[in-house]
């Protein structure tokens, strides 16, 4: 049996893609996923499944489509991958964890596009891409920042979903139980 951390992109926000996590948990359990745990409303789950990682992601995506009618991007990670993502965080430990974001990309972005974006002046906000994970730090918070999930998706031509460091740590904790 495999334990996976599942991140859903863009649910329950701005009145779009509404998914009640309690209902999703029940649907996943009914479809054979074990020990399903959900965390807050932004689409974070831990599940157990005998399926391979890609298969589990496809099945969850299909279940969401069937039961809720939304075509949602689903990111599935192993505990080891999530721990590695946390370990690779390039920002200092002194950075507030609610202002550091770990954004999972569906592919490694084009190096030329990423390099061009890196030349942009974002003021105090900084980002760094390590393979298919983008890290960004907003010392002044989100209010004045250009850096959002949608911004990076558009610029890098990827599909992405991000979580702050607190959520990343929480998901690792839940997956270890």
């Amino acid at each position, binding site marked *: 049996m495999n334990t996976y951390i599942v991140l859903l992109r863009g649910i*329950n*926000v701005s009145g779009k893609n509404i998914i009640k996590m309690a209902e999703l948990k029940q649907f996943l359990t009914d479809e054979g996923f074990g020990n399903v745990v959900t965390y807050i*409303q*932004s689409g974070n789950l831990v599940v157990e499944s005998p399926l391979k990682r890609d298969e589990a992601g496809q099945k969850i995506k299909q279940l969401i489509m069937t039961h809720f009618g939304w075509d949602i991007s689903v990111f599935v990670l192993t505990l080891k991958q999530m721990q590695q993502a946390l370990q690779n965080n390039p920002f200092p430990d002194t950075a507030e964890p609610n202002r550091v974001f770990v954004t999972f990309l569906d592919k490694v972005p084009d190096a030329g596009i990423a390099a061009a974006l890196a030349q942009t002046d974002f003021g105090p906000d900084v980002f760094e891409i390590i393979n298919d994970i983008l890290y960004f730090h907003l010392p002044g918070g*989100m*209010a004045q920042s250009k850096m959002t999930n949608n911004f990076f998706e558009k610029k890098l031509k990827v599909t992405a979903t991000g979580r702050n460091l607190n959520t990343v740590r929480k998901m690792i904790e839940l997956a270890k139980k």
Partner: protein
Amino acid sequence: MCNDSPRRKLIVELNIGFAEGNAAKVMPFLSNTIIWEMADGKILNGFEEVSGFLQRITQHTAGKLIIKNMVTHGKMAACNGILKFKDREVRFADFYEFTSAGSATIKRITSYIS
């Protein structure tokens, strides 16, 4: 703006969600980059952090919500009232900024609570 305008209904629904401690009801009204500033200077940054905060307070469900005043204008709105819990009352005044005048998505909340 009339009393049953969509914006006023939205604010009532939002506050019922707060009173019920029902994060699932509240979150769809918020933008991904929501900023929630508390009177003590604490700032919640973004959908996730607000969602986490609401999850932590879900064990506190108010038995009664009284909305005393509400004003809406352009992309701004405000309301004040009282949340009556079993053992205490919380008086609140909230200011809401929407993403635009016609939007149903809130991008900033400033809360004063006593």
